[in-house]
């Protein structure tokens, strides 16, 4: 029996020696990166400068805003777009963030998320339009998107660190790339799903291609586009937290500290902050994904609020 196992083992060993070649994939990758670093240095510097300009300014801006104003603006948005219950939640959530002494970290995260989202949409939405218009491009880009979405989140950190070092800039860049696929996908899908007769109507009444895009396709694809933007924002938020591993800062820092130094409380507080921010961003952007023309004005919302109050009293 034992000799049989040994025999199989020896056979496998000889098979491996005979057929399996050591593939120098890792070395090849390093060579490619080296090449790019030496030859595209200017390009990377330009990107880094642009990103750091936007990200730094946005985070600085949110930190500069008085907290009362942030409370007020978010609560009013919540009341207008969603309802009074959610406005109450927003106020409570922000109060908790304040109480945990995580306000600057939250504003950093918010700034980074918005900077990364803007960049992701700036590239992703036009790419999605192009995909919808060209089957060839769609066939080429789709597998890349699939690949990007199956890759674990922190794999994105490696090339970012290699090209841009550590800090806010590589964190934002990794976030941009990680969060872009839904915007591309949903834009492509949304435009392709516009009913054929509506497109025909646009063409039959004499739209040129640009008019067709802006007067028919984008408005009819809007719910799908907004859903894509919502997903992009949520992915950006989750990635910004992970990017604190390479020094992006923000709400990821207390979480990281919690893991590294086993400070359970700090880690939990950071996590709670992320959740609160996530819920607020999610509900608000989702509310824009619904067709917005039946929306009730802020005045009616406030009236409803009081009418409801009276209703409760009357009961």
């Amino acid at each position, binding site marked *: 029996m034992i000799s049989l196992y040994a025999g199989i083992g020896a056979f496998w060993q000889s098979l491996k020696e005979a057929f399996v070649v050591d593939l120098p994939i890792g070395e090849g990758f390093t060579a490619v990166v080296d090449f790019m670093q030496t030859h595209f240095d200017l390009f990377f510097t330009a990107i880094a400068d642009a990103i750091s300009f936007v990200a730094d300014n946005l985070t600085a801006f949110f930190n500069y805003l008085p907290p009362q104003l942030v409370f007020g603006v978010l609560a009013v948005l919540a009341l207008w777009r969603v309802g009074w219950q959610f406005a109450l939640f927003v106020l409570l959530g922000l109060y908790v963030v304040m109480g945990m002494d995580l306000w600057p970290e939250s504003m950093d995260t918010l700034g980074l998320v918005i900077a990364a989202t803007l960049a992701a949409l700036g590239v992703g939405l036009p790419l999605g339009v192009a995909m919808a218009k060209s089957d060839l491009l769609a066939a080429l880009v789709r597998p890349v998107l699939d690949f990007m979405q199956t890759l674990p989140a922190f794999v994105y950190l490696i090339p970012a660190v290699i090209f841009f070092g550590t800090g806010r800039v590589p964190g934002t860049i990794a976030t941009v790339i990680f969060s872009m696929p839904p915007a591309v996908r949903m834009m492509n899908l949304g435009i392709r799903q516009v*009913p054929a*007769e*509506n497109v*025909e*109507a*646009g*063409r*039959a*009444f*004499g*739209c*040129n291609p640009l*008019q067709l895009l802006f*007067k*028919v396709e984008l*408005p*009819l694809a*809007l719910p799908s586009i907004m859903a894509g933007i919502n997903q992009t924002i949520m992915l950006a938020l989750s990635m910004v937290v992970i990017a604190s591993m390479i020094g992006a800062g923000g709400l990821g820092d207390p979480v990281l500290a919690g893991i590294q130094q086993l400070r359970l409380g700090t880690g939990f507080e950071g996590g709670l902050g992320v959740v609160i921010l996530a819920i607020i961003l999610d509900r608000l952007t989702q509310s824009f994904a619904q*067709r917005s*023309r*039946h929306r009730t004005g802020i005045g009616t919302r406030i009236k409803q609020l009081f009418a409801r109050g009276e209703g409760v009293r009357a009961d």
Partner: protein
Amino acid sequence: MSIKLSVEHVYKVFGAHPKRALERIQKGQTKDEIFAATGMTVGVSDASFDVAEGEIFVVMGLSGSGKSTLVRMLNRLIEPTAGSIRIDGQDITRMTRKQLIALRRREISMVFQSFALMPHQNVLENTAFGLAVAGVGREQREEKALAALDAVGLKPNAHSFPDELSGGMKQRVGLARALAVDPGILLMDEAFSALDPLIRTEMQDELLRLQSEHARTVVFITHDLDEAMRVGDRIAIMQGGTVVQVGTPEEIVREPANEYVRSFFRGVDVSHVFTAADVARRDQVTVMERPGVSLRAALERLRGHDGSAAVVHDRGGKYQGVVSIDSLIACIDGLGRRDEGRIEDAFIREVEPVSVDTPLTELMTQVAHSPCPVPVVDAHGRYKGTISRATLLHTLDRTDKGAA
């Protein structure tokens, strides 16, 4: 009437190598054979017809017979593979993109089966869509759009959104949108097919009413014979991509080109297609010119002809009345021996002449209850023939046979 739209030998092949399919068509292969051999679909094959200014030209055929393809080639939403399409003498298949866009904005508009309204725009904005695309200023386009909405009775709903309207109302908006640009040609692809039967009839009436106010050239697609007969001045029938017959509704009912065309009448009531003029005949009764006919001479002639009734008209052919052997005898009995009597006195009072354009449906009761064949007169009161019970039954029977 002048020709507005002229379609000559137009083909459309869907597939990778349309020219190769065209060669096969020239060799006489059928649509199915070409599909089996090459995988290409012949959508429209050798369509030719003219549409006159101000007429409603109906294209009818079963699903898949190429109606939508044909109508979309008229504004080049679908590019023809071969052939020429002339609007006011100008061949649109040779137009550049730019000219084509100008043509669509100015000359030709379209109404769609599932309405194709823009859900994010209100009724007014939807109606003004074509004008907005053409760059017409806000004030002017809203004015024109409101006028178009008024024409279809939807002015009060100008600020509603499409999802707040019923199907019939949505299609009124679709119609208003097409009318707002004041097009020379209106294309309607199964525009009423998605509506309930009652609403559908209402919309057909609406179209006919609009047409009576301002006759436009309309190309109207339908798969429904009743609808085709109601709205069509002329009808083209499509089968498997080819136009098999073009004619007025009467011509098509009377002489269907083939079994396929005949099959449309299966179970369909065609009595409203025929009018009195179509079935009136001149050989059923004796005809007398009034001057110089005495009562007794008339009776002799009727007996001699073995007939039972006679129509009397004047020298100019104007209808005067009907007499029968019985009415003549009754009248003569009342006369003195030497009296000549007047033929008017023998006219059968209850027989009323009908006009040539009375539909058969409205004739049935009258013919059934009349003691003799019913006389038919034209707009000037001239005698055109008579309709007997036998003729009527024969006509109805024949169209039923056509159906069976």
